[in-house]
């Protein structure tokens, strides 16, 4: 059987976009908490909780997301903890929107 080569080669999505990257660590803690609340989450000590009060875990690594290790990226207001596995997985799913 001859493979459908064209079908096998997925496009490499690249969307640099014009958005700016704001370093999360440069935002004062009280403003960080305000942002998290505006997005529908809550903060308990350092943990991020969803609307039902359950700890938010990273979509890809299932690691708990904390106030000091999160990224806020597009795609259903994802909260990713900041590690290469999550970022590489995110790029694969959504393209380079960072």
């Amino acid at each position, binding site marked *: 059987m001859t493979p459908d*080569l064209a079908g096998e080669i997925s496009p490499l999505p690249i969307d640099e976009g014009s*958005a700016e990257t704001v370093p999360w660590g440069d935002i004062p803690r009280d403003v960080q908490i*305000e942002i998290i609340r505006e997005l529908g989450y809550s903060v308990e000590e350092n943990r991020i909780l969803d609307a039902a009060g359950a700890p938010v875990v990273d979509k890809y690594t299932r690691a708990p997301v904390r106030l000091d290790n999160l990224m*806020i*990226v597009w795609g259903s207001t994802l909260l990713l903890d900041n590690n290469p596995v999550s970022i590489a997985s995110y*790029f694969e799913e959504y393209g380079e929107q*960072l």
Partner: protein
Amino acid sequence: MSPTPAEFAAAAKAVHWAGKKGAELVEAYRNRKIRFVQNPETVRVIKAARGTAEFRALYRFASGRQRVLLQLGLTLRNIADKPDEVESLRQQIFKNFELEGLHLAQAVQHGALTVIYQTLLDGGLTEARFFFLMRDVLKDVDGFVFFVQEKMDPKQEANALLARLRRDSPMVFVVAAIGRARETATKLMKNLRQTALGYFETTRSGEWTDTYILTPRPPTKTP
């Protein structure tokens, strides 16, 4: 070193946003004007990996988690001078993708996967055959790459490797060694050469890696 104009402008913009209230920032985020990142360096390193010709060449044969592991393998290579970060990422890869995933990432990090790509490309295959073989390599990297460990017994491993090569007859096989394992690999290959291997051997050495590329000898023609 002084910041470049672009870095200076980015820093000024960051300060501008950092001075805003939460609601304003959320509105800007919802309008896709900004995004929040904890450590832009991690993002930069992964984007750099994705931008390499090597990644793009291998990407077309990969699917699903393999594509993530290609990025992580190249990232491991790019942070090689930071042993703590390398170890941390290796652990994360193992935790999320198990040993099989770690082996694929290591094969990318070492360059073994790219060596296989180059060797197969050189083999005069049809595009379809080449494509299928590369897919096979990504699916079962342990069938095509063997990583020598420093503490291995060279003679014992050479015998095991010979049995594997005779059983599976791969079109290309890479014996890879990093750092202190290179000495063990030298001994292993010496043992392997003393057998009727049936494979040609090509050696490549880098700053911290040794690569032995094995390709089958064509059958001897009888007159």
